[in-house]
């Protein structure tokens, strides 16, 4: 609790010392805004132009019947997101065309870009976005989402894994390992477990703990069992590796050695297992078939009154 108190003090310190603020979105007076948006914008950004943007009015953002749409009555059209852009029609002192109020690339800070999206999409981003790993490491909304055009495939429940793997390179390799969840085939998606907008659990999971996330599909391992296996109830990753492994059931290491990292009782649990346990040298039940699982089959927990050894 000492540490908790320290952090509480730290939190209070933030509030007292740093009352700063950041303008979330470009704001200007009416003269800064371009009239007749989007018609004027599309004069240069129409079909066939060098930088076409007309597809936005044919996509989800173009629905005039949705009062929250940028192109609904009373909204500012393109400038709803791009900010006041009247100056963009002219030239600056260097003879170059000034940028619109906001462009969605590195020329404007990610905080301002995201603020423009969040001015309408707070609900969609969810309660965990602020302070999430992606927000903290400056992954912008448009880094993943397609704003213009038709369906945003990032929102589709199938097909978003490729988007994630462009940055998460280690996971891209791990899903190719001998044993993995069916991400490589597209039958599972990263977003089945992880919320890219942040979540209460570790690694932006939807659930509060890794175990609760695993139970979403593996509820049979939740128990509670009569005979529990302590590390199972605590953290699935004590034994399993979620993205890929060289060992069956995505285990961290090969059994029986994985089991022997915690179990070293007399006789077979403490045996030194080697090639002497395989034909033609010999035959060890700790190495052949399902090794430890030949007998201790209910390793996640047993509900049999005689099953304290997790054998039944």
């Amino acid at each position, binding site marked *: 609790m000492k540490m908790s108190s320290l952090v509480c003090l730290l939190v209070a310190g933030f509030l007292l010392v740093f009352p700063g603020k950041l303008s979330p979105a470009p704001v200007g007076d009416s003269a800064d805004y371009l009239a007749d948006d989007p018609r004027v914008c599309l004069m240069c950004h129409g079909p066939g132009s060098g930088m076409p943007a007309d597809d936005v*009015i044919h996509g989800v953002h173009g629905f005039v019947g949705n009062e929250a749409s940028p192109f609904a009555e009373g909204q500012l059209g393109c400038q709803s997101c791009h900010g006041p852009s009247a100056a963009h029609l002219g030239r600056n002192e260097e003879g170059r065309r000034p940028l619109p109020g906001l462009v969605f690339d590195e020329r404007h800070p990610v905080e301002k870009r995201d603020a423009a999206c969040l001015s309408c999409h707070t609900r969609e981003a969810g309660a965990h976005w602020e*302070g999430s790993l992606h927000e903290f490491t400056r992954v912008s909304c448009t880094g993943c989402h397609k704003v213009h055009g038709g369906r945003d495939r990032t929102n589709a429940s199938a097909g978003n894994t490729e988007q994630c793997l462009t940055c998460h390179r280690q996971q891209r390799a791990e899903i190719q390992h001998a044993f993995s969840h069916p991400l490589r085939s597209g039958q599972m998606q990263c977003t089945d477990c992880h919320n890219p907008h942040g979540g*209460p659990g570790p690694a932006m999971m939807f659930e509060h703990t890794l175990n609760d996330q695993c139970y979403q599909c593996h509820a049979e391992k939740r128990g509670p069992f009569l005979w529990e296996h302590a590390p199972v109830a605590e953290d699935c990753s004590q034994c399993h590796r979620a993205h890929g492994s060289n060992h069956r059931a995505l285990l961290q290491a090969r059994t029986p050695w994985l089991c022997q990292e915690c179990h070293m009782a007399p006789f077979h649990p403490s045996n030194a297992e080697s090639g002497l346990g395989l034909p033609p040298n010999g035959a060890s039940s700790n190495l052949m*078939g*399902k090794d430890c699982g030949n007998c201790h089959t209910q390793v*996640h927990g047993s509900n049999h009154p*005689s099953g304290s050894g997790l054998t*039944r």
Partner: protein
Amino acid sequence: MNRYFWLFCALPITGEICGTGSVHAEDSSGEVEIGVGYLSDDAYQYGNRSGVNEQGLTPLLNVELGAGAEPASGATGYWWLEVERLGLDTGRVELEAGEQGRQRLRLGYREVPRYRFDDAFTPLRGPGSKRLPPGWEATDATTGGMTRLEESLVEVNLWQQRRSLGVEYQHHLDRQWTLSADFRRDTLEGTRALGGATGATGGNVRALLLPAPLDYETQIALLALAYTGTGYHWSLGYQGSFFNNRDSALGWPTPFAAHPQWAPGSGYPGGQNQMALEPDNQAHQLRVNGSLTLAGSTRLHMDAALGRQTQDEAFLPYTVNPQIDIVEPLPRDSLDARVNTSHVKARLTSRPASGLNLIARLGYRDRDNQTPIDVYQRVRSDASPQQAFMEARLNRPYSLTEREASTDATYRLARGLRLEAGYEHTQTDRDYSEVARTEEHGFSLGVRSTRWDRVMLAMNYRHLDRHASAYVGNRPLIDTRVPGSVGEEDFENHPLLRKYYLTDRDRDQWRLRLDWYLSPSVSLGSSVTHNRDDYPSGYFGLTDSEMVSATADITYTPAEAVRLTGFVNRDRYQRNQAGRSFRGSVPEDAANAERNWNTRARDHFDVWGGRLDWEDIQPSWVNGQAGRRLDLSLSFTHSRSNGEIVTETGPALDAAPLPELVTRLDSIHLGARYHLSPRSSLRLEVERERYRSDDFALDDLAPGSHPNVLLMGQSSPDYRATWVALGYRLSF
């Protein structure tokens, strides 16, 4: 019930929802593709990806339909339907309908197969492995005594199929209020291999691997109400999860003849065994979260959940073998297990000054296991007399409390240069454990630079230091025995063992990432990650583990319609552990260092691949005919993993090398779509996959290879297959 029944039932509902948003038939569009595929060879495990694993022809159907109001029309209704590989074991259907900005209904159905082995064998017959074949002979308590084993074996496939049906509904009641209701039903069916212990002779239990039916159903329901105000947000929700196993027990006959140490009647013929399968259970959780803007960019977020997990499946008897007398009845008819869970997460974020980001977090997790403790006088392996009271076991309802605190900061030192720093602390309290408390402190440092126009460089370092309170190795032994039945100095695990998740640990993690944008069309990326864990020396168990991962990739986009990507990755995992082989019957073994052993396990992974996408090619043979063009994609993947396990022993023990574990996958895929007109196209898909694995636990081991364990005799997967598919797509 037909797998697609519920989806088709839902169609009128989705029509009703989008109908309120005015969708007109003329707004609809879609694509239907029919085709046929051919698999060159039987390849059981190939079906995991494709849904096809038998040689021959397979019809294919993919559908993508949609309708939506014209954005400029003022209407907001829409719907779309996607059907992929309809009728195959990897089929997927998705249907969504809604009104933009108001409500959305999404239905999804998918199937995920897992084909493990089609070459396993068993002498057991009937659903649930309930009987041995007529004329079964067992002359002694070993597989060698099963004189008619070979002729009695029948082939069995080991597989499972997950089917998931989900419904998600979201309604924005107004600009502030949102109601969400989700429901998901998963079923898992198939046949798995379970190890069944049968008969006990001290440490030499007899066992067999038997095919066991798998028939699970899980239903998850989520209801949430959320309110978004100016500068604040809250939501309240409930989640219920209900697991149902249609098979509560698995019984099987003993195929071994009785051992002299077994109870009368427990060997073949007549000996029966029973195992409890995963019991039905429920979990309920109430969730509340909220966020509030406190001042400027400072925001407080809270998330809390209170839950309960229960399980009350009726107990099976101590033994199913009627020949064994049960003197002491079960202490209760069912467990009445109850675990209360509490989770609280609080987070404060602030951008107090330009370029400075701060986050502070607090976390609390409590797993309070309220399951009653009783004394269970077991019957070992359905083949021993019931244990006496002093030999009985007490169940241990594990509880756990975890407290976390952490803070992170990033500071933009200069344009394109950002520094990161963090501190974290975790304290975990456990009961019935060797260690009552572990505490972990850690810090992290990082720098990220984009100062150079075309280069992004990031480096991060994290160090964690875990300390455990006094390690009482025999605590589980004492806690699970009747008081007075074991002495304070008695032990089960060797006193020098330290379980890796309960002992002191130093963890170091490095990560380096470099992205280089050579030109607008070429980018290179690379990263190196190094993790190392060190445990206290002088003890048994895991002593250290290390992971090194290096990856590099390239993207080349010479034109808008052409994209070439490639990647290469090398991972190395290493774990070192120590132990001492000791026999309970030779007390001096436990102190004999000449019986020590060390095992080094290394896993190497090499993965590389590439992909070329080239769209809008104008083939020479079309002679400029409008609309005729070709889209091409070519990809390949090579994945190889090697597992090497080396055991070294002291002079009192012997060891021999173990064969290497190898898995190799090579896959090449060619896809071509030839557009005959703007509304029709032909698709050709060719995939060649080669998979080979070597596993010493399976390969060249007949069912009777081990005297005490009846195996299933399957080999590790080894296949090569070519898949060719041709389809015709019509767009409208």
